[in-house]
């Protein structure tokens, strides 16, 4: 049984939690200071935007460079199509997110706090806007609400910074990283809204509390978006360290026979159903093992779905969402997507499958941001897990072939 933390309190049917209820349940916002950063270190909280980077370390990197003029961006862009956790969190617990953002601003010495919310996420944006209006005038004056464009890469941290600076959410090459030079050249903390919400609770209840919520060595709870062939798809909060089997059970169980699980979203990868079940969802543990929980997407593919078709569509989406700033990414993903689509349609040319392997090597690491790398990693996981299907489809020539 998971002890809820983020979604403790009123049920989802009650809509956004009001400021009055929030204060009654959790008390006022604690102080955000350097001691909080130490607490976050001890809590084991890692970022929930996809990279699973330790939150305390990130805050300290900004705080050490800040001279009182740093900037905090609460990242609620959520451009990953399979993920809904951020918008759900913002729609139901807007004050937790705002608390977290303000705590971060105080702790790192920021003079501006920006709430960067996907403009397509209507319920989330209006909940946050209303929540801001319930806050004190001082807090209202410190924060700015921004609508993030509905593109896949808009949530990338340099894209968020670029949007604030220039109005265009296109990723930029690093160096410099936002924590060194971001908005207006100042040290900028770009942090996912779920991470900030966890921080808001850790500030109140402490690091030992957060640790106790997880299983075994894992810390805290995590939000997951469960979709695909499950009875009750949706956003759930589970203890970090749960297994995929437990998560799928919470989502009402798999409808039909599971073939594979997509973990982490379009930027994640496929895992065979028989290997996925026992897999432990601990973001720190997965990161240490070279894997990734990503943004917490758990999507189940059953026997009735065509894995090649699904993979081809995902790759096409990733190719279409390229910022077209780097040749290898734009043209490479386009070629990979076209070849994968041909294979999925059983209309592959002879060279298509070997070329997938070859082009993958040429695209990796050749972009200003990590978009092509994520797409390629996704494709490689598909080639691994669905290898027999790819080989068979690449050999098949459609019914019209001689």
């Amino acid at each position, binding site marked *: 049984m998971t002890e809820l933390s983020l979604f403790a309190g009123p049920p989802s049917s009650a809509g956004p939690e009001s400021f009055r209820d929030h204060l009654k349940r959790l008390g006022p916002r604690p102080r955000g200071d350097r001691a909080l950063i130490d607490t976050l270190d001890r809590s084991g909280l890692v970022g929930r935007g996809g990279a699973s980077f330790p939150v305390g370390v990130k805050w300290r990197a900004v705080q050490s460079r800040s001279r009182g003029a740093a900037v905090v961006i609460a990242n609620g862009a959520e451009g990953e199509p399979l993920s809904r956790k951020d918008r759900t969190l913002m729609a139901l617990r807007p004050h937790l997110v705002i608390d977290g953002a303000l705590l971060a601003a105080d702790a790192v010495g920021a003079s501006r706090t920006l709430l960067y919310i996907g403009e397509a996420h209507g319920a989330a944006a209006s909940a946050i806007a209303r929540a801001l209006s319930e806050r004190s005038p001082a807090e209202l004056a410190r924060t700015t609400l921004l609508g993030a464009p509905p593109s896949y890469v808009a949530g990338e941290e340099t894209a968020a910074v670029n949007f604030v600076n220039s109005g265009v959410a296109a990723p930029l090459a690093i160096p410099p990283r936002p924590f060194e030079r971001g908005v207006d050249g100042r040290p900028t903390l770009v942090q996912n809204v779920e991470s900030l919400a966890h921080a808001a609770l850790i500030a109140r209840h402490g690091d030992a509390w957060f640790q106790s919520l997880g299983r075994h060595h894992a810390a805290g709870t995590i939000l997951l978006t469960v979709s695909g062939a499950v009875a009750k798809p949706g956003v759930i909060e589970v203890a970090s360290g749960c297994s995929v089997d437990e998560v799928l059970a919470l989502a009402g169980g798999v409808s039909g026979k599971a073939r594979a699980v997509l973990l982490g979203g379009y930027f994640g990868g496929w895992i065979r159903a028989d290997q996925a079940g026992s897999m432990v969802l601990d973001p720190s543990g997965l990161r240490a093992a070279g894997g990734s929980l990503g943004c917490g997407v758990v999507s189940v593919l059953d026997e009735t779905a065509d894995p090649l078709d699904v993979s081809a569509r995902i790759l096409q989406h990733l190719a279409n969402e390229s910022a077209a700033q780097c040749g290898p990414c734009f043209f490479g993903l386009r070629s990979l997507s076209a070849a994968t689509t041909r294979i999925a349609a059983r209309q592959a040319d002879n060279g298509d*499958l*070997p070329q997938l392997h070859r082009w993958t090597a040429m695209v990796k690491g050749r972009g200003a941001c990590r978009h092509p790398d994520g797409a390629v990693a996704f494709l490689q996981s598909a080639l691994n897990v669905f290898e027999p299907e790819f*080989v068979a489809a690449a050999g098949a020539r459609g019914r019209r072939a001689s």
Partner: protein
Amino acid sequence: MNHPATRAIVGTMENDNANDPRIRARDAATRMLNRITAGVAFGAIASIGLFGAVSAFTIPGVVSSTQGATASVSTSGSTSSSALQSSSTTVSSSSSSGVAVSGVAVSGGS
């Protein structure tokens, strides 16, 4: 990955690679790059000798005393041009061979 299908894929790739015209063209271009680079390097070394010799011939400076050398090296155009006029014929004949400006001519040994 010991799946037989994998080995098949890997095998196909290995056979294709050596004969793939794109890879052969790339290798040929890389060889040409190395050859031209080597040619330029050797040509440059040879040219130092050549240009050094030509410059020594056209404006040798007065070897006996540094004073004289100063006079011929000074920016007054008249001194150098008179040295030029006296050996103009030699200069023009050497300049034709001296127009090994681009190292490519020297690297014709590829």
